[in-house]
């Protein structure tokens, strides 16, 4: 598992230019100009699919299917968004379901991962190394192996077509990566603070919630952002556990729109844009944690 730990030592940003010399030769400067132009074109190309999605969500039907392509709608047709909500697919329910699932799953992830991380970082208990090894071992385990029996398990206990299979497992700290990240962070916090608290009569749970967790905001935020993206984007689990359309989250809802609104690309684009919007806002405000998380773990983003 050393491979997963490795990037932990990498600082986040790369500010140092690869070629840093006080005076640049002409040849080198020409080369940089060429590179600048190339990268500009390429970066715009990378943006095009997303921008096309957003602009098409504001087109009228005839503009979507026009030749040559209409890149910017002449008159933004905001009514598409209204239509998306008032059509026969329950978009508002999709959104509300997503909120419920994501909030409870992320909350469970944060609480359970912190507790478990604390036991690995601060308490000396027999069997600790064994369980920590197991935890690391599950990190690379593909979900797909346990998909069928988990489905059978949840159906047997009557959780089919409920949100429980999408929430409850995450209260069991099954995401080893998050536990590991939080543990690493706890290990870096000096124990003296807690010793002082113990002398004052604080319990372990209190030192965790009132000393360690507040000091661990960066890693908590990173884990929260990742867990949020994971559950927001989760498609396979809701697809197999939910049957009633009114219970679908947005990820499955977008597929519903894609399947049922075949003639109305602008509506499908509008719903996709609605799904992207909160993540985009989150990204603008929490960009640091996205990048931090990726350089720490190599995972995440979606």
């Amino acid at each position: 598992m050393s491979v997963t730990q490795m990037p932990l030592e990498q600082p986040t940003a790369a500010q140092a230019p690869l070629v840093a010399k006080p005076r640049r030769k002409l040849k080198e400067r020409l080369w940089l100009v060429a590179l600048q132009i190339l990268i500009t074109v390429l970066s715009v190309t990378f943006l095009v699919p997303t921008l096309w999605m957003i602009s098409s969500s504001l087109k009228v039907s005839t503009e979507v299917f026009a030749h040559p392509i209409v890149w910017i709608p002449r008159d933004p047709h905001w009514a598409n968004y209204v239509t998306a909500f008032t059509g026969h697919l329950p978009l508002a329910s999709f959104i509300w379901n997503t909120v419920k699932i994501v909030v409870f799953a992320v909350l469970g992830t944060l609480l359970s991962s912190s507790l478990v991380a604390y036991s690995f970082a601060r308490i000396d208990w027999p069997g600790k190394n064994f369980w920590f090894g197991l935890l690391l071992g599950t990190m690379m385990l593909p979900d797909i192996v346990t998909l069928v029996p988990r489905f059978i398990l949840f159906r047997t206990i009557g959780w089919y077509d409920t949100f429980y299979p999408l929430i409850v497992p995450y209260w069991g700290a099954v995401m080893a990566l998050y536990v590991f990240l939080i543990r690493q962070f706890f290990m870096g916090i000096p124990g003296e603070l807690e010793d002082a608290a113990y002398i004052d009569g604080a319990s372990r749970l209190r030192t965790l919630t009132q000393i360690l967790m507040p000091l661990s905001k960066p890693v908590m935020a990173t884990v929260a952002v990742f867990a949020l993206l994971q559950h927001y984007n989760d498609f396979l689990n809701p697809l197999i556990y939910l049957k009633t359309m009114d219970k679908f989250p947005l990820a499955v809802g977008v597929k519903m729109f894609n399947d049922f609104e075949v003639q109305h690309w602008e509506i499908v684009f509008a719903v996709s844009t609605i799904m992207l919007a909160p993540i985009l806002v989150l990204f603008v405000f929490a960009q640091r944690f996205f990048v931090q998380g990726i350089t720490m773990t190599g995972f995440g983003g979606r």
Partner: protein
Amino acid sequence: MTVLQSAGRLLTGGGPRRDWLTGYLFASPFILGFLIFIAYPMLHSAWLIMFEWDPLREPEFAGFSNILKMLEDPKVNKSLFNSFFYTVIAVPVQLCISFTLALALSQPLWFRDYYRAAFYLPIIVPLVASAVVWQRVFHPEFGILNEALGWFGVDPIRWLFEPQLAKPAFIFMSFWAIGRQMVIFIAGLGNIPESLKEAASLDGANAFGRLRTVVLPLMTPLIFYNMVIATVNSFQTFIPAMIMTEGGPSDATLFVVLNIYRNAFQYGRMGYASTLAWELFLIIVGFTIMQFVISRRWVYYEEGDN
């Protein structure tokens, strides 16, 4: 929570550092979660290999018939071929693109933050939304890819409707989402000590020489790391195939996970699906071990690292 609170109260007054009960209590979410949601399902799924099970009926003992069937099932072979083809071509090219981009964005350019955000943006687009959009990007008549190719006089191509072109289209789409790898490479490049590069320059190395003798060797651990992650992820491609092509045309995008999903939840063959899932698991493990073994030949670890 009440159990934990009472455990906390027991300890008030500064408990001993070595502590059986508290240790297990704090670790209990993982211990229970592991036993219930990971260990038990894994054992159960291994046991299911021996059974024929339509969830509407009782499981029937099937011996090794699932394994024998798997070995000669044309759909299974097709899905394995598809996933291998996709992974083996997509991953190396992804690594080349993301590494080159990271190198470029480490040069003293203007607007580096903007570029980084632009290349990173595709990663935050939810996979379902990006699948829905790319399905239309590839549309023969109204898609922007054919429109752009048309500017260069290329006739419309039926990307997702041609068995020979569907997988290449998927591979092309995967290049759009290399932001994560790029971010990791950029961080790594920023970590390379200036002194090493200067030393190489003093030895007469030009930019390309520095790249080959200093930068690339120091980056091999991250290249390896990105490669392992990308391989594992590529083998499990599901959402685009499910949304854009439903495995078609002529099973050209029937990837392994989609085939497992169909067997389990559309054809009701739980035992067979478990068998296929184990096969995929063993392939991924095998591939990863192989990569680690080969990595000893080309990945450079500094002395005293780890």
